[in-house]
């Protein structure tokens, strides 16, 4: 469904992503793990059109979409749930959800809104709260709710458990499973590598801008040298 070939992204003089190729098939949960500075966020941001790659291609359903704008990608069904959620703190919960559905016609947007509220009753009770007052768990629900509002078939999630207490981490991974069972495809970047490897069908390990290991979730999780490869300690 999604294919990234030889992608390189630089900004200023920093080459954050170097010749990276990954693919995500429909219905999969694909994980992207690696230490900070590995380029994982940059890879997601480039895929979704926030950054322009200096080389390489992004393909969605066999269509070359390299360099498309974020709203064009949304229309193709590819949505990003950004790192640290980036909710609009001054807007209410409902307004945050509505904005996320802006690419849809009004009736469809309303329908999705009702779906999201049904899935997250907590959000329904907090409709008119400014998003800045939500707790961590509620905020994460809102973030995922926004991704659903976009009607996306492919969700790119950037560190969805960042800053959340352990109990909420479980919740997030449950939601990720739910999303998959609804027929969506997910590419998830996570700090919590072990949890992600348990949940993912396949995963890539990135370090200093390149993919250094890949395989099924189980294969990578079972590697005894995972820590070493993860942090680049040889020997």
């Amino acid at each position, binding site marked *: 469904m999604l294919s990234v070939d030889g992608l390189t992204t630089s900004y200023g*003089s*920093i*080459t*954050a992503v*170097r010749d990276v190729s990954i693919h995500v098939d429909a219905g999969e949960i694909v994980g992207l793990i690696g*230490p*900070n*500075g*590995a380029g994982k966020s940059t890879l997601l941001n480039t895929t979704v059109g926030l950054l322009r790659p200096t080389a390489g291609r992004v393909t969605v359903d066999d269509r070359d979409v390299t360099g498309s704008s974020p709203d064009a990608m949304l229309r193709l069904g590819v949505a990003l749930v950004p790192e640290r959620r980036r909710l609009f703190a001054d807007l209410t919960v409902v307004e945050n959800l509505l904005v996320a559905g802006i690419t849809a016609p009004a009736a469809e947007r309303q329908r999705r809104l009702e779906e999201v509220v049904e899935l997250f009753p907590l959000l329904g009770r907090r409709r008119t709260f400014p998003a800045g007052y939500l707790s961590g768990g509620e905020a994460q629900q809102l973030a995922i709710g926004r991704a659903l509002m976009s009607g996306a078939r492919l969700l790119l999630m950037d*560190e969805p458990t*960042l*800053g959340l207490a*352990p*109990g909420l*981490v*479980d919740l997030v*991974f449950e939601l990720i499973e739910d999303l998959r069972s609804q027929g969506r495809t997910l590419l998830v970047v*996570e*700090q*919590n*590598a*072990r*949890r*992600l490897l*348990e949940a993912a069908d396949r995963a890539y390990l990135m370090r*200093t*801008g390149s993919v250094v290991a890949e395989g099924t979730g189980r294969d990578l999780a079972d590697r005894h040298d*995972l*820590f070493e490869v*993860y*942090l*680049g*300690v*040889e020997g």
Partner: protein
Amino acid sequence: MRREPLERLLVPTGEAAALFAILVVGGLLYTMSGGSARDTLVSQMFINAIVVVGMQVYIGNTGILSFGHIGFAAIAGYAVAIAAIDPLFKRLFIPEAPFGLATVHLDPLTATVVAVLLVALVAFLIGLGLVRSGARAGAVAPTMITLALLFLVYEAARNFTDLTGGDRSGLSFGPGNSLEGRGWIYVALGLSILAARLFRETRAGRLAQAAREDDLAARASGIDPAPPQMIALLLSVVLVAIGASLRVQLLGSMTPNFFFFSYTLLTLAMLVVGGRKSVTGALLGVVVITAGSEATRYLASDAVSVPGFDWLLKEGLSDLFLGGAMLGFMILRPDGLLGDRELGDGLLLRLRSAQPTPEPPEAPVASGAASTLTVRGLSVQFGGFLAVHDVSLQVRTGEVVGLIGPNGAGKTTLLNAITGVVPVTDGTVALNGEDLTRRATHRIARAGVARTFQNFRLFPSLPLREHVDVPAIVAERHRHARGRDARALLVAGDLWDARERRARELDTGTARRLELSRAAALSPDFLLLDEPTTGMNEAESAAMIEHVRRIARAVGAGVLVIDHDLHFITNVCDRIFVLDQGRLIADGTPEEVRADPQVREAYLGSAADRSR
């Protein structure tokens, strides 16, 4: 070091002389082929040059957009007019002038001196206000404050008619020009160009430029931008006042509109079109705009008719030209025609390239006991979010300590708290017992704690050598580091060959090494490095290990380094602290830390069946 006087004094002086000569000769040639109208035009151009060069001293060196310089000019203009006009004529305009000013009669030179002093005093007060408002390049507050000054002076001039003659009559020098010949204009022009050009090379000028490029990085290098900015302001208003005095004498009269919006537009356009960061640029802008202005004025006058274009050639065309030039340049070439290049840059480059490579730095003589940086119970809270919780650690000179942890662990926040970039909620930071908590960033740097930045913050338009020379200035004054050759740090960082290149052209590896050398140039006791290998490839990271060790040894500093590249950290550090979710969870030797299961879990996370 002996070449310094040659570069920083002789070449700029020669440059200033050359620029002066070009202007004067060009002006004379132009005047000779025309009548008295050309004569006046050239005189006006020279006077505008004095004013614009004065503005360049402040706006160009500090990056702060001031609209008030023409307000200062207005004050000076009125001071000169009121003091120097013959009382015989003065009482026609301002017979009721307070303080007996109607009878005062100073010669123009003395009047100018009085005006300069007055303006300097006002500028000093305004300058204090600017500092208080946090003036730095790109800030809005100083623009508003100086704009307020411009309007205030204008309104006051229109209102206090007893003193100024207001709008209706203004002030006049009486028949005949008060300014005899161009002698004084030449003197003032020559001195202004020289002063402005030399200021760029003085310590104050160079510190101001560093702060202009990046305020935070400058502070982290020990620079307090306020005094250099104040000096720049004072020098600039002196020059502007002199120019204003000459302008009033040339025009022979003074009204509030002489130094208001349209003169502001004219002088600003001249400054930005040529390139506000250099004196040559400012002068080029003066010439270009004067020529363009005159051409458009001529074309729009009744004397000229160009078939097919008469719809364009109407009164007001020169204002359109000015506004259009300003607009066009901001869109297409915001740094102006010359950017920050000066006339003598080519010569300077050749001189500097001929410099011999300095010796690599040796370890300093042990000047005293080792220093200790102690962090005790440090906590940092942002709103409801506790980024750093009760962290204690210690670094001694001579050792290299690592700080690692997964994303969001609070490492950079910890560094920012130690260096005064974010406020400390609880706990202390001390250097040899001296409490550094809650001190201003530049004071912490001067105390001996230097740093680099995660997204490196260089001085984009300054050359590499300036990146080490400027902290060396601070080091000389505040760190008792006389005679230490900062240039040697460039060699140590493999940067010597690139020393004349501008920092914005660098690739990541070079940029990071430069940041390291810059921090070391402060002769600090401690180097705090924030992810110095991010963005580097494997080879560069490996080389960085040696760089860090070498530089740290060269200045005898202790190092605290944050990074994610564990290969780098393991090989460069003696001890490692591990942070997770704002708390210290482990510390020890690299081997101990690598084997620690808590550390592994922090990085890789825990499996689902172990959740509580």
